[in-house]
């Protein structure tokens, strides 16, 4: 079947088998490999992207269902070389380690903040309930999303985790928490 979709700003028209999963169409058909796949039951959320602005798990959508839509993947989230505030926040607050869940996690967070620009910690945790991370224990992801929310509201990001200044001399650095 013929499908036409705009992916990260570019229109593509292709012939696909009806059974082709959206995620495979993007990855194998269009070479948009930024969106990874982590499960086959729509639990892990690694393949989350935005279809017409809303988060979906692209492993549980057929490419034919996405005919006529506009899709944003992690590769299309930045504006040129300017990262989206959520992308920035994930780096500033160490919201990722191996990074495999990160594209889905970031796009789920973008979706969350589009509905709830000022979430509580608890709302962030529930808003990300469809995305599994095995590395971070989620704490820094939550922090990243709260910081991005603050920045997107115009209140500036939360204080970052990383140090812009050099550490104190190692010999004198005491225990910190």
């Amino acid at each position: 079947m013929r499908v036409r979709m705009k992916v990260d700003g570019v229109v593509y028209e292709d012939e696909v088998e009806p059974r082709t999963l959206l995620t495979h169409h993007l990855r194998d058909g269009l070479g948009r490999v930024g969106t990874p796949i982590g499960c086959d039951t729509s639990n892990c959320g690694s393949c989350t992207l935005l279809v017409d602005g809303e988060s979906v798990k692209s492993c549980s959508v057929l490419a034919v269902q996405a005919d006529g839509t506009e899709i944003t993947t992690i590769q299309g989230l930045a504006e040129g070389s300017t990262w989206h505030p959520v992308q920035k926040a994930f780096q500033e607050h160490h919201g990722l380690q191996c990074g495999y869940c990160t594209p889905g996690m970031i796009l789920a967070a973008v979706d969350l903040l589009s509905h709830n620009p000022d979430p509580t910690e608890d709302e962030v945790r529930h808003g990300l309930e469809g995305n599994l991370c095995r590395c971070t224990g989620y704490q820094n992801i939550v922090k990243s999303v709260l910081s991005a929310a603050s920045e997107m509201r115009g209140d500036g990001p939360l204080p970052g985790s990383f140090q812009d200044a050099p550490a104190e001399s190692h010999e004198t650095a005491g225990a910190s928490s």
Partner: protein
Amino acid sequence: MIPAAFDYVAPTSLAEAVSALSEAGEDAKILAGGQSLIPVLRLRLAFPSTLVDLGRVDELRGVREDGDSLVIGAMTRHSEVMDDPLVRQYAGLLAEATATVADPAVRHRGTFGGALAHADPAGDLAAVALALDAELVAEGPGGRRTIAARDFFVNYLETALSPDEILAAVRVPKLEGFWGVRYEKFHRVAQAWAIVGVAAAVRMDGDTPGGSIAEARIGLTNMGATPVRASSVEGALVGAADRAAVQEASSSVAEGTSPPSDLGGQADYRQHLARVLTARAVTAAAGLGG
């Protein structure tokens, strides 16, 4: 994993969809939101010959008022249902339960009608439909018919729909007056299916909070092969005015149920949970504290 090959049609009207389904024959399946079906296809647990995708049938989507009822199009997505002002005003229990279904991305694709037609007793919405005396509107080659929710859920993953019928809409009678609602979902992790869920709606005497219960509706999730309406408990709850009375009335909620014994819990544990959660749901819905 990857689905086996199938044919695909995407009708744009309900009439087209009904004829497409008939033409596709008995091995066809309806694709609604696909959030249960596509994983099943990927795991190759089902091999439909044709998928009839209702995603482009606009008339199946949306919520409208029709006298004493809301009419919710079968293809209305969970995210639309839970945020819909009419649903929130007249069917708050449905909004609350829908917000617990899966996760936000799944709720963007999954549909109210799809969830009901799938008839998984562990799904949250069937018990709500039952508790709210919803009516399910089916469209088939022979025309349209309306099925009461209590007649709709026939067995595990089995409904009263015939293979050539499509669930078109769900009529949900408005709850008028002061109704308190609560959906108590008990699960081990946020994503998991309910081990037990209790949907409760109660109307208070004098249509004000506090006082005693005038009317109650109780639906149970995952307490048998189909969702369960706890009618006897509903009767026993009438007049209850404090937690102790609610607890007493709730204590018989598991009688006659045959919940599954599986990884989520043994049947006796589920029956115990049903009692605890019913008391909690009703107490909260009735505003009787804690």
